[in-house]
């Protein structure tokens, strides 16, 4: 091979960049997010009614879209009631509905969001529930 010094150096840089995730996390323990739904408000509900606004299968991937629709519904249409797919209605509010049940933001919303590296900017304005540091 000609100019092998330079070419091998280049290839080493390439391999180091491409395989970066493989060695970067070695030795670090990355816990899967364990969300807790043991808040007082949820505990108050009877066992069979411990459900979210929509089904878990819908909420898990789709809660941000639901929140976006809620926001549009209130801010644009002034409509503050949400009728879910089972016909139950909820007051549309991030702070007073979602966060009333999920008052453990640190052990719920933040668990997933930190794991995924998302930082919703909602809390720049909306007030997060008061929690004890855990």
């Amino acid at each position, binding site marked *: *091979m000609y100019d*092998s010094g330079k*070419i091998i150096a280049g290839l080493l840089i390439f391999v180091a960049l491409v395989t*970066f995730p493989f060695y970067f*996390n070695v030795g670090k323990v990355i816990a899967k997010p364990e969300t807790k739904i043991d808040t007082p408000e949820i505990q108050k509900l009877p066992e069979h009614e411990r459900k979210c606004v929509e089904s878990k299968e819908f909420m*898990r991937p789709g809660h941000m*879209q639901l929140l976006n629709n809620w*926001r549009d519904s209130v801010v644009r249409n002034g409509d503050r009631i949400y009728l879910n797919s089972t016909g139950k209605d909820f007051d549309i509010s991030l702070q007073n509905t979602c966060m009333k049940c999920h008052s453990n933001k640190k052990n719920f919303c933040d668990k997933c969001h930190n794991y995924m590296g998302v930082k919703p900017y909602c809390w720049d304005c909306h007030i997060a529930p008061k929690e004890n540091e855990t």
Partner: protein
Amino acid sequence: MKILFSFFTVVFLVLLVFAGATTGNKYVLFLFGVIIPYAAFATFLLGFIYRVVQWGRSPVPFRIPTTCGQQQSFPWIKQNKIENPSTTMGVIVRMALEVFLFRSLFRNLKTELRDGPKLSYGSDKWLWLAGLAFHWSFLIILIRHYRFFIGEVPSVIHLIESLDSFLQVGVPLVYITDAVILAAVTFLFLRRVYIPQVNYISLAADYFPLFLILGIAISGVLMRYFIKVHIVGVKELAMGLISLNFMAPAKNLQEIGVIFYIHLFLISVLFAYFPFSKLMHMGGVFLSPTRNLSNNSRMVRHINPWNYPVHVHTYEEYEEDFRDKMKAAGLPVEKE
């Protein structure tokens, strides 16, 4: 024909993975979620290295940079140190401009035969602009994806992400690069369709990567903004793959969502196809002798490495052999 062939190849790939993933069979999902990505990555890495080593084996004995500036000459003639570099530093600057800003593409011209008939040349920056927009968006998107592969996402990635979404449109926030890459790839495709000269020289090998990348971008955009998937499951799978510990997340493959497998499979195809394709220009740009050599032909003697020793018979030796006969014939000789 070439367009349709490439297009339907990508459609076929999408249908294939769609059919596989909708079965929800855990072995099929394991194939698309674990085995194919590993195989594709290995092909990419080894194939890339193989291609570069193959290139490295071709000798480049002489300096053949394509230059467009005054070369180094007398001290009172101003040299263009970047366009016609004579030092390694100059080459590095020239390469950096090429790699980061596509400097040579900036000189792209269009040629037209006008009434007269007159041949006219005009500047044509659209290809340069779309190429730049495409490559930079792709790079930023790639870097953003590192959040799926790193346990504690570093702040650089958060910074890039927040700059990319600073318009704060919708939830999830719209990324500017998502829109830019779709527009740029569409432009790069339409250009091949509508410019007759470019159309004439375009091959299936040009259209296929474009459709493939378009497919990847569209499936990604659909997944982020429209057809939601279980993203936490995706990250668990990604972390499992890179820590070679894929059995645990493999239990939850059914929960993720079909569109994710389409996205992942198209990416796997892109990775596996990479070393065999024109996409190798990613490595090739660094090995282009017309770019990466300094123009020092007039300062340094470059010896062809495959020169073998040629047996020469000099005049002195010739005269030595035939001196007597030459003298006898009355020919002048140099040495008596």
